[in-house]
């Protein structure tokens, strides 16, 4: 299957008073039509910068320093803002954590969705725009859309606002939806509904989705594939089954083990000791070594390559080197829960 989006060795640097932050370091992955790819990692590991780099929405201090972004086989890495404006919307749309920041508090919800439609189809007759707004509102699960068309964001609950943001994002019929922690600010019951909605949209519209989260528990519901990010790098990537039932990277083990659902009956929750390293001058060797109870001598000297486990499953840990001692994963197998 041809990739909709192909990221090759992407690196992003951000200037800061403390020095250059290497927010994304040599990241490669593909996104296929109609799939949900989850990107999971602790905060500060570069998830948002990766998304912003893909959409070319980096802050002024940020810059793509290496690698390529291919959309439908076309290299867009050096596209100008003008070219990008055409692509955004048509090719990708985005949903961020805080729905309020994406909505204009002074304009009714329906009108905001209508405006998003008109950006991409300026000549669409009024009545058709209205009908599309209503069908979008229905699609994202806003009940009584006719009545709610004229309501303002402050009339809506947090969940309803995030649904509205999704409707705006989908107004342009994007091929790719980038959802950066779309449920982090929401209640669990609403979170479950939004995740179901993401899945439904993917099934109904075939939209490919990049779903960013810091919580492996949350993305199990709708991810087809999962990429684990640490200190600006993807350290493991595979199908959801591979990541949850056969994880190979000690960082993935750590993320899984700290979930309370996998600690039932234990006296203490398993934790990952320490904190992620600063991305100003990150270590040249394995950045996870200091926190890794399974670290090998080699981890302190050299960055591990991506070892291939299956056609779809890769992990960057020296434990997968044929010379490494065999370590039984502390977690995995179908009997997770």
């Amino acid at each position, binding site marked *: 299957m041809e990739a909709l989006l192909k990221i090759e060795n992407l690196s992003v640097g951000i200037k800061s008073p403390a020095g250059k932050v290497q927010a994304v370091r040599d990241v490669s992955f593909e996104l296929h039509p109609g799939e949900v790819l989850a990107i999971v990692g602790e905060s500060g590991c570069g998830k948002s910068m990766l998304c912003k780099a893909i959409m070319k929405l980096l802050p002024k201090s940020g810059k793509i320093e290496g690698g390529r972004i291919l959309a439908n086989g076309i290299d867009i890495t050096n596209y100008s803002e003008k070219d990008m404006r055409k692509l955004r919307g048509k090719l990708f749309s985005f949903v961020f954590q805080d729905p309020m920041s994406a909505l204009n508090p002074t304009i009714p919800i329906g009108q905001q969705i209508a405006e998003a439609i008109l950006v991409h189809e300026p000549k669409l007759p009024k009545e058709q725009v209205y009908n599309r707004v209503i069908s979008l509102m229905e699609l994202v699960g806003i009940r009584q859309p006719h009545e709610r068309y004229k309501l303002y964001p402050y009339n809506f609950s947090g969940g309803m606002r995030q649904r509205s943001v999704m409707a705006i994002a989908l107004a342009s019929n994007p091929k790719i939806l980038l959802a950066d922690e779309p449920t982090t600010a929401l209640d*669990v019951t609403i979170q479950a509904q939004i995740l179901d909605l993401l899945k439904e949209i993917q099934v109904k519209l075939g939209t490919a989705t990049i779903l960013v989260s810091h919580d492996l528990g*949350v993305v199990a519901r*709708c991810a087809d594939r999962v990429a684990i990010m640490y200190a600006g790098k993807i350290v493991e990537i595979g199908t959801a089954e591979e990541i949850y039932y056969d994880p190979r990277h000690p960082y993935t083990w750590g993320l899984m083990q700290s979930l*309370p659902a996998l600690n039932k009956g234990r006296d203490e*929750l398993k934790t*990952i000791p320490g904190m992620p390293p600063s991305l100003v001058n990150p270590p040249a060797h394995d950045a996870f070594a200091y926190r890794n109870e399974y670290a090998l001598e080699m981890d302190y000297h050299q960055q591990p390559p991506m070892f291939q486990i299956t056609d779809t499953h890769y992990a960057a840990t020296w434990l997968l080197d044929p010379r490494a001692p065999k370590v039984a994963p502390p977690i995995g197998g*179908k009997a*997770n829960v």
Partner: protein
Amino acid sequence: MSEILLDVQHLSHMFRLSKHAAIQAVDDVSFQIKKGEIFGLVGESGSGKSTVARCIMNVFKPTAGKILYHGINVCDPKEFRRNHKMLEATRQIIFQDSASSLNRRMTVADIIAEPMQIHRIKPPRGSYRAEGAFQLYYVGMDDSYLDKYPAELSGGQRQRVAIARALSMEPELLVADEPVASLDVSIQAQIINLFKHCNRDHGHTILFIAHDLSMVEYLCDRVGVMYRGKLVELAPTGELYANPQHPYTRALLSAIPIPDPIAERNRPKTEFDELSFDKDGVFTEMAPGHFVLRKENNR
């Protein structure tokens, strides 16, 4: 029979918005927390959890009801004034958004030491700085952070500083209002272990407020569920999870994500209307210690 540290009786709190509009944020809520217990309070945002916490901490004056702490009615101005020092020193709160409650002009070391200095407590580890380093270490940060300012820290680090500050007082009652909601899962686990340790080894009683039921299940001895200002269910943790009675409790439980993709995909779609739960009825004991708000006619 263990001693009751906190006794919340028919607590109600109303926010007046204008002459004609008011919000009944808390509506006739009663529960008790035993000494040495970790009590969980869960519910969706806006259900009144923080308002309960703030009434307990004397931030808000309740519209009705009483709150007894060590038998002292903290809502009574006279009793409050008479016991002011003890109440300030032995009760600590960690806010949901402690990041913004930290003094921006103070270093981490000073922030942690401030409550001890105010109450003229001699630092058990020699100096305030040593005490700060100790408390920081406890929340998983090293002493290189002592001289930093809040602006130089991440949200998670600021939250941990707020926790270190509260713990430095060795509080008898710690009210933690969604203390981990903004933190990474791995850091959440560190903080949760920390609360467990404080409870077990230092005997702190904890009111732990959360919207995430999975952490509550792991941490708390008993749990109360709030919905739109009402306490709709209260039970020992195991009992609540095994035998939830109120439809809202069931919805909350069914929404907990499971880190297992096949199980998740096979789970039925969540179908609950945001507006659909009943909050009328009488708080009834269904089983020993298990209370549910239910209409009397469906007994």
